């Protein structure tokens, strides 16, 4: 029935269009009945080109005014500050170039719209002009490349050290686990072959013959101490996943058969983050939306949504199957003392398999 209706609507639209075309054609019998643009067309399309330039500026400004608050808050990691700087510099260059080039393009399209009898300027080449707009991007890009590479090297050079906390992120369809190295600071060997040992209690496949693994701690919620470097070792047991922690400007793929690495130092605890103005405003806005949605749900006799509290997120950001959209883990950043206290309450691998 729906298909029939859709088809009828489509057919009606087609007929309507056909009639409109007819009217267009009949309404201009006196003019040369050609489908090539004439002065009238050039005039109104030229004016629309100018209007379109204003539209581009307007949609840019409107989006920032209306949706500027959905952008990520300031970075909560040490390298994230540098990242944000580079991002704003790049954006400044982009907006500058965008504003000027779009203006030239659309203004010329308006200004030089065709008229009968006018002749265009025969102007085929100018080496100096071309040199200018080759060299300017070269300079701008050289700066961006150098700054970018400096930051990149800084972020990606990971040196093992005693102060750093080593955490394994373990991905599987469709959840995350984290493993801490325990007192010895060394993660025990692991492989998917060991996953079925101990009646499935060996959640990340730790090799029970490696003594380093006994004090390892496997958890479902990621806790991180603020102010300490965290070195992540990523693994996946089935397909590609990507550990994406947007608030820390951190991301790395998890690849089956291989261990990948990323490191950062979290700087703001979850508690402190909740008290920032940005997050307060965001949480308030989200809870307003959720209340409205809840009313609709209650009207249908369903349960209301729970109010939202801010937490850092770990998301999967590489397509991994049906529930890819819901593969998440909560991240709690806390003071070192809170972290140590939390850690002592966790079971080690040795305790789990007993």
């Amino acid at each position, binding site marked *: 029935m729906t298909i029939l209706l859709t088809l009828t609507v489509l057919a009606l639209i087609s007929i309507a269009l056909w009639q409109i075309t007819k009217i267009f054609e009949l309404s201009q019998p006196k003019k040369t009945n050609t489908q090539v643009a004439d002065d009238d067309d050039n005039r109104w399309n030229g004016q629309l080109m100018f209007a379109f330039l204003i539209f581009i500026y307007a949609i840019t400004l409107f989006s920032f005014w209306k949706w500027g608050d959905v952008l990520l808050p300031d970075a909560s990691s040490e390298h994230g500050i540098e990242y944000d700087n580079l991002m704003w510099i790049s954006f400044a260059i982009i907006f500058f170039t965008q504003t000027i080039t779009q203006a030239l393009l659309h203004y010329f399209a308006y200004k030089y719209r065709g008229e009968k009898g006018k002749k265009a300027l025969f102007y085929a080449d100018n080496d100096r002009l071309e040199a200018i707009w080759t060299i300017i991007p070269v300079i701008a890009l050289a700066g961006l490349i150098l700054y970018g590479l400096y930051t990149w090297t800084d972020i990606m050079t990971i040196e093992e050290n005693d102060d750093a906390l080593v955490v394994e992120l373990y991905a599987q369809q469709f959840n995350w686990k984290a493993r801490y190295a325990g007192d010895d600071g060394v993660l025990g060997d692991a492989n998917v072959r060991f996953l079925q040992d101990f009646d499935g209690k060996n959640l990340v496949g730790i090799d029970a013959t490696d003594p380093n693994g006994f004090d390892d701690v496997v958890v479902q919620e990621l806790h991180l101490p603020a102010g300490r470097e965290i070195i992540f070792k990523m693994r996946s047991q089935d397909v590609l996943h990507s550990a994406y922690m947007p608030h820390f400007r951190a991301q790395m793929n998890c690849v*089956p058969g*291989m261990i990948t690495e990323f490191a950062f130092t979290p700087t703001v605890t979850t508690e402190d983050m909740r008290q920032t103005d940005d997050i307060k405003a965001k949480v308030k806005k989200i809870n307003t939306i959720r209340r409205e949605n809840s009313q609709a749900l209650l009207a249908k006799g369903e349960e209301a949504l729970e109010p939202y509290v801010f937490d850092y997120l770990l998301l999967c950001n590489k397509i991994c199957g049906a529930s890819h959209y819901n593969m998440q883990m909560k991240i709690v950043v806390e003071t070192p003392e809170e972290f140590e206290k939390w850690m002592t309450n966790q079971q080690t691998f040795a305790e789990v398999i007993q």
Partner: protein
Amino acid sequence: MSTAAAQIHEEEDHGHHHKETFITKYVFSQDHKMISKQYLITGLFMGIIGIAMSLLFRLQLAWPEQPMGIMSALLGKWAPDGVMDPNVYLALVTIHGTIMVFFVLTAGLSGTFSNLLIPLQIGARDMASGLLNMISYWLFFLSSVIMVISLFVEAGPAAAGWTIYPPLSALPQAQPGSGLGMTLWLVSMTIFIASSLLGSLNYIVTVINLRTKGMTMSRLPLTIWAFFITAIIGVVSFPVLLSAGLLLIMDRSFGTSFFLSDIFIQGEVLHYQGGSPVLYEHLFWFLGHPEVYIVLLPALGITSEIIATNSRKPIFGYRAMVASLLAIAFLSTIVWGHHMFISGMNPFLGSVFTFTTLLIAIPSAVKAFNYITTLWKGNLQLNPAMLFSIGLVSTFISGGLTGIILGDSTLDINVHDTYFVVAHFHLVMGISALYGLFAGVYHWFPKMFKRMMNKNLGYLHFWVTAVCAYGVFFPMHFIGMAGLPRRYYTNTAFPYFDDLANINVVISVFALIAGAAQLVFLYNFIYSIFYGKPTEQNPWRSNTLEWTAPIKHIHGNWEGKIPEVHRWAYDYSKPGYEEDFVQQHIPLKEGEEELQH
């Protein structure tokens, strides 16, 4: 060369005598003009499917979990109670990407216009090999048919994203789409690659060998330069995708471990050892990135021609335009790693790829500025084709600029695979190349179908599409900058993203209007084939050779001798001439200087 042409001509004279059957004229035709129409119509048909799919998942993204009649009508059991299944969502984005990138913007764009324009603009009777050309089209047709069939497979079509990264694509246990649907996808793409290679080789050989007398490389229209360079990129990079596909088929069906290692899935340890998915990513993107330029360069070639013609001005900086095409083509083969900054490859490689990637901005900037300067002090004839060409420059700039962020390995860390990427590549390559396709269709429709398209419907089509394109993709940058990953069935699983819901609605509404605007084009296209106003010989008063060929399509393109070329293609508004255009076959006047370009 001239003897070859003469030979063909001689054969042609005989050719007129025998009658062509329906089959040899319309189905298994070896005539490049007919093959180009076949490519266009197949491409448009696939385009309808691809765009319809995007509208379906835009509905899902704007109104998740809401029962919709259209879902159950179109998806049946895949949308229980009118709500799309998550697996189907992934299948839709996968097939949308595959169809739009390969079937519409590679075969539909390059196949159509390379076939139509290469022989006509260089002054050749036909392609170097009509037979290979015909086989190329029919392989494309076959691969399209298989791709469409894969939509009707019990467990659904391929759903691992258009990049089909293993192990997701390799293991049927990982998702329903990785079963028969994936097999058909691989078979279809293998045939597609064969088709593309045959086509590309033909284009290259034709451009090198069959140019008419006087048509030196430095007098080639920029369209031909673009098609020629595109064909070279295709020949260099498509075979690598073929090898990636074949190795993946081996892993899937014959138990090899090229891309797989240490896998535990569905309660079972698999036997694969020693392979690496990262290897697949390298092989895939060795094609995947040049593919972006395979899609984009023909569109840039088309707009170069259209902008010059409709500005009634020479294209500004012809040599720079060719040089930048060559530079982009060369660089495009050494930047694939920027898709893999966070794949786990060595960070030093990331540095190298950042460097090469950002270099591409230089020839791109040259192109954009040269287009703008071509408009300056022109006498712009704002035909629909011209509007789409200007629109292309606009989206090419808007989309290209954000590439500065994504090409920078540092900044890529946090926007990689978010909607920021989706917004970027849709503007710079999807929309731009589509605009190129539309511009080409409006401009060369008279050459293909002997009739004109309705300009007012063309204007309506352009303006609605142009507004909606920005309406869809501009807000999408914000969703990406908010940290929302792409390929999420819905973002309701994260309360954190609840404030993005209304942006998604705005995007979807624009997308639906844009979709409706394409119906205007479709209607105009079909109506004009049958009832459009018959065209004049040279409706846009253009310089290139195709407009000297008779309106009626004949085998061999020109009655009698092929015109000889005496000048470049851009003598528009040249001082000393009354008309504002001088066609390429008109000899230089006494004392007239050919521009040193």
